[in-house]
């Protein structure tokens, strides 16, 4: 079976190279037979990569420890969910996952556009297959997931997945991020196709619009899940540490955010054509760059398990992408045409351009902060450390300015703002923000904040107040906009306000989906503002001892141990009280997995409310004396970050929701698909029937037979007791 996987990888590489060449001919000379062949080369590449992926998944589920990757990243005691997660738990598997996402989205893009963008699609296929060829070359020659052991000394148990990764969020975090990075290939391919064909009408923007939102969506989820994991597993009480690998996933998110806004200007006013192409090239280059710095060992990070020896391959891929992209951009620089001038600095176009500059500046800041330590060490030999305080010093004011722009951009008119328009659009939201914002801050401070016993610095207090004020401004502008539109529509169509809003959301998904996304971002900003009042304490206690943090009294009660099938957890019961009244008991702990006893993991306990989180981590303990060291946080408004993420996901899905025309395109050409599907199914049935029978007889469940035996013989429930 590993040979099938290796063969599939080489076959996919060969198909990609041939397919890219065929697509080049199709694009250059437009002959029907080459166009058809290029389309099916994309499908064939998808098929071959899927074979390789299926083989790896099969090997993981059947514990084929003759394959090194399976032995390194799985073991027989892992439940099915984590076995699937171990697919992307290691370097080679994550690269194969990335490649399969590129392959499947390329095939989907080819299918969706099989009757449109005739002059673009061959070039889009050529670019996508070239990128896939690069990734497959790395897989085949640098990091083959199907390498087997040479000597018959197969480990029979496997080393298991890194315990830090054995949480549901961490299983989902890599595929989300990898999907975000991989799906960036499609809009990049459309931008390159526009450069190559010289077609600078808005066709490439229209074709690529939804494909640009898809990577942004996955990067948002991936970054959020990473933050959740850091918050719940690492024990330092935060969700974003400006870690270099976190930043590597943040650059493309920032760039894509800028692009999503600036393509609107190109669609409506025909402006910013060069800018949009440059942004798209930068977004894709940053995905490769981020992967390079993560996997090359160039930067030190909590993600050090992602480092490998294939950094040089990614460097070559990065250089190739940059050289080809810049060459095409330079070639078409003049053809991209004279940009239309701004009519007024007080216009929506100007606001969007300023928004773009802000996001690009933030990208440059994060890039500088991430790379400068390495650059300085390389150039001058001296070490420098750039940590969260440096990043926050720049990013907080820039972020607050961006929040203000979010509100302005919603209501500022196109082309120019007259005095009358300013009065009608801006006056009420501004007054509301100036009145409600500080009032909310004061209400929180006197209602709850002062009781925490923390006095924020004047700068932190200013930032928090500005954040809340601008958040109120942004929300007010959106609500006012929706209300005005709903009233106008309700009057014109004799509809109730709620019906009008539903119809508006249905007919203008992009606009109102965008508003919902903005609401999610506003909620996240509330969480950021809460950091001004965050409290942290490190304490060491004996059983029965208490500490006070804010207005909480925490009492360490006892230490106990639980044994589960795959791990042993030591828990410390800590009761929380306020004003003499007992509230609840927290149980932070440490887990040691049976397969990796030398790598304990934190089991944080968090009591979450919309107002604040009480967060307790067990740092260390002494089994003999029962002394325990804790890290305790009170983090106001952290819950709003997760709420914001959920709202953002909902809004993005609304933007991505297909229209009726788009659904019609998905319907296959009569006869062709049915014939193809029928043929494939017959072949699959004939070839897989004996194998299906063999599989059924060998395995009665989707886990190892040995685990079933263990389950049957394991009559003892999970034990509790003192260590």
């Amino acid at each position, binding site marked *: 079976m590993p040979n099938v996987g290796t063969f599939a990888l080489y076959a996919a590489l060969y198909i990609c190279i041939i397919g890219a060449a065929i697509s080049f001919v199709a694009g250059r000379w437009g002959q029907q037979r080459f166009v058809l062949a290029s389309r099916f080369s994309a499908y064939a590449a998808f098929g071959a990569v899927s074979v390789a992926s*299926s083989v790896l998944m*099969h090997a993981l589920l059947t514990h084929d420890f003759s394959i090194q990757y399976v032995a390194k990243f799985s073991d027989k005691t892992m439940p099915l969910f984590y076995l699937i997660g171990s697919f992307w738990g290691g370097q080679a598997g994550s690269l194969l996952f990335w490649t399969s996402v590129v392959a499947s989205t390329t095939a989907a893009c080819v299918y969706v556009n099989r009757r449109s963008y005739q002059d673009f699609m061959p070039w889009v296929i050529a670019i996508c297959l070239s990128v896939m060829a690069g990734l497959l070359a790395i897989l085949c020659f640098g990091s083959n997931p199907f390498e087997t052991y040479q000597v018959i000394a197969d480990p029979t148990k496997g080393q298991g997945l890194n315990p830090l990764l054995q949480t549901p969020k961490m299983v989902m975090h890599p595929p989300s991020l990898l999907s975000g990075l991989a799906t960036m290939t499609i809009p990049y391919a459309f931008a390159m196709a526009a450069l190559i064909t010289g077609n600078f009408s808005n066709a490439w923007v229209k074709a690529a619009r939804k494909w640009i939102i898809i990577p942004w969506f996955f990067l948002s989820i991936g970054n959020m899940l990473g933050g959740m994991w850091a918050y719940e597993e690492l024990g330092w009480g935060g969700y974003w540490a400006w870690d270099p690998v976190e930043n590597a996933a943040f650059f493309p998110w920032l760039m894509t955010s800028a692009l999503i806004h600036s393509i609107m200007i190109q669609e409506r006013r025909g402006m910013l054509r060069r800018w949009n192409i440059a942004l798209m090239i930068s977004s894709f280059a940053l995905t490769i760059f981020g992967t390079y710095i993560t996997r090359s060992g160039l930067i030190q990070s909590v993600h050090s398990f992602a480092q490998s020896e294939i950094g040089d391959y990614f460097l070559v891929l990065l250089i190739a992408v940059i050289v080809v992209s810049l060459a095409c951009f330079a070639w078409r620089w003049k053809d991209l045409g004279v940009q239309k001038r701004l009519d007024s600095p007080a216009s929506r176009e100007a606001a969007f351009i300023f928004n773009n500059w802000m996001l690009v500046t933030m990208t440059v800041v994060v890039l500088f902060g991430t790379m400068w330590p390495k650059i300085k060490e390389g150039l001058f030999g001296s070490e420098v450390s750039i940590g969260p305080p440096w990043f926050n010093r720049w990013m907080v004011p820039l972020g607050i300015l961006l929040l203000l722009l979010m509100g302005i951009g919603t209501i500022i008119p196109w082309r120019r703002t007259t005095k009358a328009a300013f009065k009608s659009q801006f006056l009420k939201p501004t007054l509301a923000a100036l009145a409600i914002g500080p009032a909310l801050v004061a209400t929180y401070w006197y209602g709850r904040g002062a009781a925490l016993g923390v006095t924020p610095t004047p700068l932190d207090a200013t930032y928090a107040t500005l954040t809340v004020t601008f958040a109120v401004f942004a929300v007010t502008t959106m609500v006012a906009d929706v209300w005005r539109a709903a009233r106008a529509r309700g009057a014109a169509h004799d509809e109730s306000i709620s019906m009008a809003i539903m119809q508006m959301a249905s007919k203008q998904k992009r606009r109102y989906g965008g508003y919902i996304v903005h609401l999610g971002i506003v909620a996240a900003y509330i969480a950021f503002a809460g950091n001004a009042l965050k409290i942290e304490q490190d304490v060491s206690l004996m059983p029965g001892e208490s500490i006070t943090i804010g207005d909480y009294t925490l009492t360490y009660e006892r230490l106990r141990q639980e044994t589960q099938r795959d791990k042993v957890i030591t828990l410390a019961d800590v009761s929380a009280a306020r004003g003499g009244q007992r509230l609840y008991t927290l149980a932070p702990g440490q887990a040691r997995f049976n397969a990796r006893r030398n790598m304990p993991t934190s089991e944080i306990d968090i009591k979450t409310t919309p107002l604040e989180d009480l967060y307790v981590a067990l740092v260390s303990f002494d089994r003999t004396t029962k002394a325990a060291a804790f890290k305790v946080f009170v983090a106001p408004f952290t819950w709003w970050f997760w709420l914001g993420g959920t709202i953002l996901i909902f809004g993005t899905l609304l933007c991505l929701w297909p229209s009726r025309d788009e659904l019609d395109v998905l319907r296959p050409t009569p006869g062709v698909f049915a014939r193809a599907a029928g043929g494939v199914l017959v072949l699959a049935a004939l070839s897989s029937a004996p194998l299906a029978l063999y599989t059924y007889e060998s395995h009665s469940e989707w886990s190892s037979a040995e685990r079933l035996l263990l389950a049957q013989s394991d009559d003892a429930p999970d034990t509790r007791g003192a260590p």
Partner: protein
Amino acid sequence: MTLALIALFIAFTAYAISRMIAPLVSQDDSARADLLSEDLRQSEELSSLKAMHKASLRDLEIDRELEKVTEEDYRQLKREHESRAVKAMRELDQLHGGRGWQSRVDAALATRRAELAPEPIKKPKKKKTPEKVAAEKKTAKASTHEPVGALEPSSAMVTCPSCGFDRVDAEASFCSRCGSPMPALDVSRSTSTPSLSEVN
């Protein structure tokens, strides 16, 4: 199940490779026809431009309702988008043989049908009920294009060789469903001599 998936993908890959190779080795002349003709490429680009300007006009109306554009700018932008959309539509018409091509085709078809159809037996006129009149009006409104006289598919319609749509006008240059070029027909010849054998 993973083994079944592996088998399925192997079969799919084999099928896709065969379809990838087939057009390159096929002797069928139609498979070698140049799909990317300049007409089709322009037609697609113009349709895309037209749709884009229509969407911009829709957004402009909403912005005007929400006072996000001054009246002067609204009129100017509306003029710009409308003129570009109309220009795209006129260029599209030119690609299909000039404006009014469809009515010319319909007239030719009607003449041909009249020549072929037998003398109808005169029936007494039935008085139409108001419901029937309303239903007929509704049907007339729903149809996008009504050629004169009753259409018999086998005499006036042909089948598109690309997508299989069987209601393409016999004189059409492109399929009205998928846009593929139709085999060329001599319109002048068809008005005098029925040539149903050419339809396929």
